[in-house]
């Protein structure tokens, strides 16, 4: 009862057919978008998510010499006039490739709600779950030649990006330990047996869907099985491995979970994966803020530097948007435990690549900390609108949620200074 060529043979067959000039159903290898370089390549997004709320004052918006500045000092960067915290000497060397926004505002000061906002562009809503930015891009810019997940979350961390009302199939594919062996990816039985199992599965699924067709389709059970099978047999899985990378490259990123995650992110972009988030947790410094942020910087600084340098070297930066942000910033005032608390007004992020303007500085916070509102406040939704439209998707596009409610992907407007 074998209905098709065994899975393992499929690739061989496809390639032979391509060799005979019959591979019209498949894009020729050199035409694959993943192999293109420069600005014409479809854009990908890498979000370095700093979970816990990084302090703007200890990263991209230091105010040394002011009461609110604490013990953090600042250094010059490749951008004339721009100073960042001195814990980021390597970032200072590449920051001209990105832009700095110092005036992000959010109205969510709770981790769970804050993460929701900066991952979806919407405030939590009790009636529906919005899709994360990566899920929107994976859905709208789906690449049929990619057999591995097109939305990936690396390094664990709380609340990985979700597909929300677009469906769990757009949930980020989670890899807790990037660069290590992928789990559950090999069938470990002979092709003939795998084939007959799949044939059996087709028949059993058919029985179940009879009279429940709409409900069974809604489950997407078969779709996920098919995608899993395609993934199991894909060469593209190599993008998840780093064993072919030199020791010096791995060291450049930093041999941490986050560093390896950034390296894998670059490789996934190279393979054509649409959206990747790499999470670095540990920024919630209610106590010992300065020491905590120094430790975090030791991980973030080399990884960010290596990522930007590498993307440039591979000619991928023009087609890769890099976004570095957390769910909120931290208070200008230092609390009695030498910590800073949650601060959703006037926090910072880095964004660039993918054809966005580079080297811009947007917004400013009050160095005295008296004025809560920053100059030129930027809403998360505006940042999202910028990224979404730069990736060739209509940011205000309305989609109908499963309960029939029309909902725009994003309610912001693109930031003119970045496009």
């Amino acid at each position: 009862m074998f209905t098709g060529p065994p899975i393992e043979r499929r690739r061989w067959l496809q390639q032979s057919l391509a060799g005979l000039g019959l591979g019209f159903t498949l894009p020729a290898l050199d035409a694959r978008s993943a192999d293109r370089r420069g600005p014409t390549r479809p854009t990908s997004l890498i979000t370095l998510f700093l979970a816990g709320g990084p302090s703007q004052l200890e990263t991209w918006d230091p105010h040394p010499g002011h009461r609110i500045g604490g013990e953090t000092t600042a250094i010059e960067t490749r951008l004339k006039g721009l100073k960042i915290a001195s814990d980021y000497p390597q970032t200072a060397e590449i920051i001209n490739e990105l832009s700095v926004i110092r005036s992000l505002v959010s109205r969510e000061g709770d981790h769970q709600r804050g993460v929701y906002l900066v991952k979806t562009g919407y405030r939590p809503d009790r009636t529906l779950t919005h899709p994360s930015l990566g899920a929107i891009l994976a859905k709208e810019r789906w690449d049929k030649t990619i057999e591995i997940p097109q939305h990936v979350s690396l390094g664990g961390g709380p609340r990985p990006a979700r597909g929300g009302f677009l469906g769990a199939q757009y949930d980020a594919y989670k890899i807790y330990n990037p660069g290590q062996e992928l789990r559950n990816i090999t069938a470990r039985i002979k092709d003939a047996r795998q084939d007959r199992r799949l044939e059996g599965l087709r028949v059993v699924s058919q029985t179940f869907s009879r009279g429940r067709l709409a409900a069974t389709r809604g489950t997407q059970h078969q779709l996920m099985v098919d995608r899993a099978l395609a993934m199991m047999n894909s060469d593209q899985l190599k993008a998840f491995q780093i064993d072919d990378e030199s020791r010096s490259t791995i060291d450049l990123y930093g041999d941490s979970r986050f560093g390896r995650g950034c390296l894998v992110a670059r490789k996934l972009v190279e393979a054509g994966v649409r959206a990747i988030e790499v999470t670095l947790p540990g920024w919630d410094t209610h106590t010992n803020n300065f020491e905590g942020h120094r430790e975090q910087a030791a991980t973030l600084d080399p990884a960010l530097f290596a990522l930007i340098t590498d993307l440039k070297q591979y000619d991928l930066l023009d087609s890769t948007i890099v976004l570095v942000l957390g769910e909120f910033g931290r208070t200008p005032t230092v609390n009695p435990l030498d910590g800073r608390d949650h601060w959703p007004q006037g926090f910072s992020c880095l964004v660039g690549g993918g054809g966005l303007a580079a080297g811009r500085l947007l917004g400013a916070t009050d160095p005295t900390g008296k004025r809560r509102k920053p100059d030129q406040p930027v809403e998360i939704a505006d940042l999202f609108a910028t990224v979404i439209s730069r990736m060739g998707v209509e940011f205000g596009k309305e989609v109908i949620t499963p309960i029939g409610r029309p909902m725009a992907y994003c309610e912001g407007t693109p930031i003119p200074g970045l496009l």
Partner: protein
Amino acid sequence: MEGCHAAGDSTPQAASLFYSHRCQNGQTSLRQPDRLASSPPTLENVGMKLLRRVIPLLLVVVGLLALVQAIAGRPTGDISTPRRLADRFEAKQTAERLDAWFQDRWTREQITPAAPAHEATVLRRLSLALHGTVPSLEELRQFEADAKKRRLERWTQRLLDDSRFATYFSERLGRALVGAEEGPFLAFRRDRFHAWLSEQLAANRPWDRIVTRLVTAQGLPTGEPATNFITIAQVDEEIDEQVLAGRTIRAFLGQRIDCAQCHDHFFDPRWKQAHFEGLAAFYAPVRFSPLGVDDNLAVQFEVTDHESGTSRVVEPRVPFGSEWLPSEGTPRRRLAQWLTDRRNLRFDRAIVNRVWGQMFGRPFSSPVNDLPDPGDPATAALDLLSEDFRSHNRELKWLIHAIAASRPFRLDSRPHVPHDSQTLELPLEELRRHEEAWAVFPVLRLRPEQVIGAMLQTASIKTIDRHSHLFTRARRFFSEQSFVQDYGDLGDEELSEQTGTIPQALLRMNGQLARELIKPGAFGATTAIARATQGNDRLCLGTCFEVCLGRQPSDDEQEVMGQWLADTRGRRRELAVEDIFWTLFNSPEFSWNH
């Protein structure tokens, strides 16, 4: 056609083969520590060198055995519940009232409900909802053999009496009460908490009494596990009264007012910041020291204004129903009395909605912690059930009986299709309308612990319960933990609806546990079935289907998979059965409730 369910006559040989004696093997292993403990006198004769080597080893063995027993044996107490026949029939009356309400709604909305589901399918739903696993072949056979009237009612009672109910259901309810966060210390305390809660459920303690104990508990987290409702809210050495206020309202009243923590609720004018602060003030005196949880009544709730930096004292205050708030007593006791007051309709609605969600996989009103006000026409069924729940002493077992006996719970998952329809399928929009009116049983993804529970159960044939060997129970415990993590644990959001994902498909297809469970071997179901049905392929396939899906194969299935078994013997036959199990494990029918 879906295969017929009963088919009792086709498999009696298999039945006799797979009926098992309930052996008490566990006790043999358990006695081991005693034997070891009684050995010291003879040790005098042994050289000191040997002694030094043996004692640490023994300690490790004893420790491990104790650990395995502690894990596998939860709940520790074997509480037997008197069967309350009268209650069951009263629950039936409530179910009838409920059915009338649904019938009325269906007529109004011009919906014809689905046909009744097979009773074996309803048993599968019950078993998944109450034990987190599918019925074993052993149980299915007993169910088929039960020819007396009202067998579903009796089996509901039987499932409720089984200690697996208390253990499983306490885990589910516990999600709302203490969350599912990780951490070794919390995990230990959470375990104690679940053991306590499961004892309450086994004893059918009224829900208001359980809640009162949670809110007012004092003492050490080990001695009085209910205090862990409080200790779980510990943030930086202090008990965070705001965390407790939010959780209290979500878990016990089904309302979400957390947004009002910092400001008046933007979208829901019912909740003000003052409401939240007033509720948090009830928990302000709570402290957690090495002596345990108690109240320092001298402490008042002080709030610092972010804008002005000034502080003010907030008195305990409730957002509504202040006339039910007693004036006497400690703040926590007053809060508990207000929460559980019989006039506080939200209290009963919240638990009724949550239990409904556990039974169907989808709460009556979603999300589970954001209910409309009592009396809202959309949730009139909740009011109706709540009213009877109150008059039945707020016993959860009674509530489960009532829901299990209701018509929506017993409908087929295939919707009714009008006769004049072009196809035999209902279009998606229509299906959604039927689902919303509970006129068809919803096809919903099983939660991870149900998928793994079902896999473990089917791979063993015999019922895995407290009579099972310690090793079996321990394996179930550990396998479940890691599988649930990989499958994607939704934590306290587990009552939200989801589609399947690639990682889940990969885990079912290639995961180590699934592979090991169906691998031919001395103790597995695959080998047992392959050997026992040698020479009867139809019986072999039928048994596999019954074990995994609780039904017989359809003609198509028989034709395709029957061939795998043709002319096989020994190892080849075992591998064919393994392939059948793999296929059934990966089918939507296995991992979706229907």
